[in-house]
């Protein structure tokens, strides 16, 4: 096959329909970027589940005196009550391990979270002292989704103030991730449909512009692949540039948005990195060419009438 003939055809084809090719490339760029964001968010959700979800905690807070929000607590939890609670936790088959967070450690956590200042916990007029901070028994479950058994076994025991599921705290993170992910995928699907329609239009226009040439090619016995090849190469070229632009945008998002901003600012959550970016690159690198080559193969058959 004549490489020079093929490359000349490709150059001419791209020049002839420059604005249409630009439209295809830009639409592919935006749609593949959105699809890539969806893929990355999916990876983020998996990562969050892996790190936080697998260590899903159940915090059992024990009674403190003078606690109007929890009327079942009239006095500080007794040693016997605490022993009974610990015994229940240790004998529960859903529990992998547990640890005690002392009143002092709890107070430190309040300070770290900014609920009180160090000064407010000191001196005779202290707003909050360790005495009034509930002791916490932090349980790690074997299966993060099976928390009901231990929660129901513990919550009615004497000396239990309240139970907090970490799932309730991180649940919002997953909700936000899912909303953005599905929005991105929805927008990507619409734009990808637009890209496919633009590819169809470009093929129709090119077939029209080259009808004389194509007719001669058919008459002199050019094979189908030879006639379709310029269309296929144009499709691959458009996909290549679209993927390249999307890869650049996603790299910028990974570097400046995730690594430099989110990962640097929030220690509480794990964030995806370059390996997830490479995975996303493979996904859009395969999807981009397929989205242009498959319609090209189908539509050239329609418009070129072999």
């Amino acid at each position: 096959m004549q490489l020079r003939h093929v490359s000349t055809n490709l150059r001419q084809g791209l020049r002839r329909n420059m604005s249409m090719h630009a439209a295809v490339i830009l639409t592919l760029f935006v749609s593949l970027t959105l699809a890539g964001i969806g893929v990355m968010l999916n990876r983020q959700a998996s990562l969050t589940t892996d790190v936080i979800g697998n260590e899903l905690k159940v915090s059992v807070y024990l009674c403190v005196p003078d606690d109007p929000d929890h009327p079942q607590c009239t006095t500080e939890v007794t040693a016997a009550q605490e022993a009974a609670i610990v015994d229940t936790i240790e004998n529960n088959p859903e529990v992998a391990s547990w640890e005690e967070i002392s009143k002092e450690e709890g107070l430190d956590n309040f300070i770290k979270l900014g609920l009180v200042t160090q000064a407010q916990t000191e001196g005779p007029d202290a707003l909050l002292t360790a005495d009034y901070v509930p002791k916490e028994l932090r349980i790690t479950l074997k299966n993060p989704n099976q928390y009901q058994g231990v929660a129901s076994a513990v919550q009615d025991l004497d000396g239990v103030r309240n139970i907090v599921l970490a799932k309730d705290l991180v649940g919002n993170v997953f909700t936000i991730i899912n909303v953005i992910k599905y929005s991105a995928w929805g927008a990507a699907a619409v734009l990808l449909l637009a890209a496919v329609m633009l590819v169809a239009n470009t093929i129709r226009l090119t077939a029209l512009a080259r009808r004389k040439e194509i007719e001669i090619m058919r008459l002199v016995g050019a094979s189908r692949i030879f006639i379709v090849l310029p269309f296929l190469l144009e499709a691959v070229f458009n996909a290549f540039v679209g993927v390249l632009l999307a890869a650049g945008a996603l790299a910028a998002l990974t570097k400046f948005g995730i690594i430099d901003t989110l990962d640097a600012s929030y220690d509480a959550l794990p964030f995806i990195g370059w390996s997830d970016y490479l995975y996303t690159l493979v996904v859009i690198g395969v999807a981009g060419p397929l989205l242009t080559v498959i319609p090209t193969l189908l539509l050239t058959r329609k418009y070129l009438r072999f």
Partner: protein
Amino acid sequence: MIRFEKATVSYPGPGKPALNQVSIDVEKGEFVFLVGTSGSGKSTALRLVLRELRPTSGRVYVAGKEINRLATWKVPRLRRQIGTVFQDFRLLPGKTVAENVAFALQVTGHSSREIKATVPQTLELVGLSDKAGRLPDELSGGEQQRVAIARAMVNEPMILIADEPTGNLDPTTSVDIMKLLDRINATGTTVLMATHDNGIVDQMRKRVVELDHGVVVRDEATGVYGFQH
């Protein structure tokens, strides 16, 4: 070389078939005029030979292949054995004479070396060696038709199909084109030419097959355009 066996072509919709039970046998190296009024079925017959159409019933053989049974992927190979010339020349306006001729070789996968060797020879055959670098716009009608013939012949086909090749040319130029086709025929190429040009047909005294409403009404070994009374 070309054989129609009771070939019938019906287009969708009501009306008579474009070709009706047509049987023609064209031997290797023959020169055959296909004559008849517009709508008589000449172009349909040529399209059958090119396998642009398949017969609704009956059989058509071209270069030993039954076109009804020919797989789509084998059609290009069949067409490489057939050269085609049209009334409107169908040259590519942006390409020079040599490039137009080379195009037929390029798109059928010939190497640059083959193209460089073959194109000048073919241009010499049609008498256009000195105009290889010209664009089609810069040529007369007769010269443009010569380029089209060169393009049709550059693959050295066994059959040359000509659909009204003199239809756009003046009588003198038409005679020149016919002489060229006759020369090509003399080298062993089978020529099947559809035409309205009675002067040419009468002068050449070749085999004439006349179609009327899709039916062969006359097949004479050395005929003229109209019936001889």
